[in-house]
C-alpha cells in the first residue's frame, strides 16, 4: 500500500490536487468544483471544546425540564421532550416515536459526546486509535441530528396552539435554543475533514 499523503482528491469531483499549507483562517477549495476541501483555523480545538462543554450543560437541562406547557380553563399540562416521545409511543406510533427520539435526543447526544472526546484528545495532543472510528462515526451521526428543525417545529406548534390556549414556555425551551447555537458553533469548529487533513499518513 503506497500512500500519497501530500495529495488530496476532492470528495465531490475526485480531482487530484497537491495539499498546500494554508494561511491562518484559510480554506482550501477544489479548483474545479469549488467544494471546501479543508480549513486551517488556529485555536479551533479550544473554542470547539468550550462550545461543546457549555452545550452539554444546556442539553442536560433541555432534556430534564418541561419544554412547554399549556393552560386551558385552569388545567395545566406540561411536557418534556421525553414525554412527547412517550405520548407518540403510547398511541402505537412506535416508528415515529423512534424517529423523533433518534433525531432529537440520541443523535445530538452522540454528536456532542463524540465531539467532546475527539476535541479533548486533540487538545491533549493525542491520537488514540479509536479516534479514527470516532471521526467516522461523527460524519455518519451529524446528518441525523436535527435539533434546529425540531426548534422550528416547536415554534410552529406553539403558534397553532396560541389560538385556543395559553402557552407557557418552559426552561427547557430556552435551554434548547442555547444548545442549538452552541452545537452549531462546536460543529463549525470541529469539521472531521479538517482533522483528517491534519492527521497525515500512517507508517
Amino acid at each position: 500500500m503506497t500512500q500519497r499523503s501530500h495529495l488530496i482528491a476532492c470528495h465531490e469531483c475526485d480531482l487530484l490536487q497537491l495539499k498546500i499549507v494554508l494561511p491562518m483562517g484559510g480554506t482550501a477549495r477544489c479548483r474545479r468544483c469549488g467544494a471546501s476541501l479543508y480549513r486551517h483555523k488556529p485555536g479551533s480545538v479550544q473554542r470547539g471544546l468550550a462550545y461543546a462543554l457549555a452545550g452539554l450543560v444546556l442539553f442536560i437541562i433541555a432534556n430534564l425540564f418541561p419544554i412547554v406547557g399549556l393552560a386551558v380553563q385552569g388545567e395545566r399540562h406540561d411536557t418534556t421532550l421525553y414525554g412527547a416521545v412517550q405520548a407518540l409511543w403510547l398511541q402505537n406510533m412506535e416508528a415515529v416515536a423512534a424517529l423523533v427520539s433518534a433525531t432529537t435526543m440520541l443523535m445530538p447526544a452522540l454528536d456532542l459526546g463524540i465531539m467532546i472526546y475527539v476535541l479533548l484528545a486533540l487538545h491533549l495532543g493525542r491520537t488514540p486509535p479509536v479516534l479514527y472510528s470516532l471521526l467516522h462515526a461523527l460524519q455518519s451521526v451529524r446528518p441525523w441530528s436535527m435539533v434546529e428543525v425540531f426548534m422550528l417545529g416547536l415554534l410552529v406548534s406553539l403558534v397553532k396552539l396560541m389560538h385556543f390556549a395559553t402557552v407557557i414556555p418552559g426552561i427547557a425551551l430556552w435551554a434548547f435554543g442555547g444548545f442549538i447555537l452552541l452545537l452549531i458553533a462546536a460543529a463549525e469548529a470541529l469539521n472531521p475533514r479538517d482533522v483528517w487533513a491534519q492527521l497525515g499518513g500512517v507508517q
Partner: protein
Amino acid sequence: MTVAMITAARCGLYACRVCGLVSRPTQAMGTLTCARCSNALYMRAPDSIGRTWAFLIAACILYVPANVLPVMETGSLFGAQTDTIMSGVVYLWTSGSWPLAVVVFFASVTVPLLKMLALAFLLITVQRRSARHPHQRARLYRLVEYVGRWSMLDIYVVTILTALVQIQSLATIRAGPGAMAFGAVVVLTMFAAMAFDPRLIWDPVKEQYG
C-alpha cells in the same frame, strides 16, 4: 490558460471516502481497505446509481400515503377532525399566520418534492453520461443534501401537539398514519442523497479545463 486536470481514479489512486487518504493499494486480492482508517476502499461508491434509485422509488411510493392520509387526528367536543399535511398549511394560512404557512409549505411540500425531482434529474444525467453543466449539478446536489432535513418539521409539530393536547374533557390530538409515511419519505430521501456519489457527475467531464 488551460490546465490539465486529472482525477485520482484516472491515476489508479483510491481516495478513501471516509478519511480522504489517497493511496495506491498494492495487493490485488480481496477487499481493499484504507491504510489509515481501515474502511473499505472503492474508486466510486459501490452500486451508487442502483441504490439511489431504490431509495428514491421507495420514497416516491410512500409520498402518496404521506400526503393523502391524515397526519393528525383531533377529537374534541365539536366532533372529530383529521388533518393532512396540506390541510395543516391551509389552516395556518386561513387563521392568519401566513408567514408560518409559507415556512411549513416550503419545508413539507416543496422540499420533499424538489428533492425527489432533483435526485431523479441527477441520476438520469449521470446515467446518460452527460458532461453538461457539472457546476450547476454539483451545486444542486449540495442543496439537496443540505435542505432535506428540514422536511422533518411536520413530524415534530405533530409530536408536540400530540403531547400537549391531551385534555381528556376538551380535546385530544393523535398522530395519524400519514405521519408514519411522511417520516419514512424524509428518511428514505436522506438515504437516497447519501447513496449518491457526486463524483459520478464529474466523471464524464473532460479533464481539460481552462
